[in-house]
């Protein structure tokens, strides 16, 4: 662009920033739930009960543990879990750490799962013992 050409005003000073751009993410739902309904039950699993404030704390602690293992933006965390508390926690903690959650289908065979692990470049795998041997 030459110095004489007036710049398009709509391209100036409108870069993405906190004032004009906020990504919508389910992570804020959990933060809000923990603030507004701290004592409300978030997770029921057998006899286990977790309130939103405890669930939020566990998710953040898991995100911290992932970050300590070097997990961050661009990394993949794979899970092989049923609908259990770690599955819920991974859905929040993995994006909190900036990583991508890769949830395996428990009905797939070993060859397809192996392809997915390689294709996803899985850094961490969390696996229920139910699915470990097969």
């Amino acid at each position, binding site marked *: 662009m030459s110095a004489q050409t007036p710049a398009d005003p709509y391209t100036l000073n409108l870069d993405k920033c906190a004032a004009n751009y906020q990504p919508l993410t389910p992570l804020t739902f959990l*933060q809000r739930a*923990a*603030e507004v309904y*701290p004592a409300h039950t978030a997770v029921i*699993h*057998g*006899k*286990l009960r977790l309130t939103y*404030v*405890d669930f*939020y*704390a*566990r998710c*953040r*602690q*898991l*995100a*911290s*543990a*992932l*970050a*300590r*293992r070097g997990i961050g933006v661009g990394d993949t965390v*794979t899970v*092989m*879990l049923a609908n*259990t508390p*770690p599955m819920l*926690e991974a859905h929040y903690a993995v994006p909190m750490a900036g990583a991508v959650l890769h949830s395996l289908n428990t009905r797939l065979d*070993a*060859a397809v*799962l*192996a*392809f997915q*692990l*390689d294709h996803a*470049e*899985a*850094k*961490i*795998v*969390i*696996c*229920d*013992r*139910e*699915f*470990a*041997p*097969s």
Partner: protein
Amino acid sequence: MKAALAQAKVRPLLIDYDDREFPQAGEPLAALDYEAFLAAGDAISSGACRRTSGSR
């Protein structure tokens, strides 16, 4: 999962989830338990989440 990991080229860190509510007999993949892994993260007190909301 064991067979899939044997076929895959990647060597991810393996974490076992031992469901105490519905115990499973499957042999663990590794020595690292989910609860132990989670415990290695920074513990956050229940009251901390309220303080983090000040920026909004």
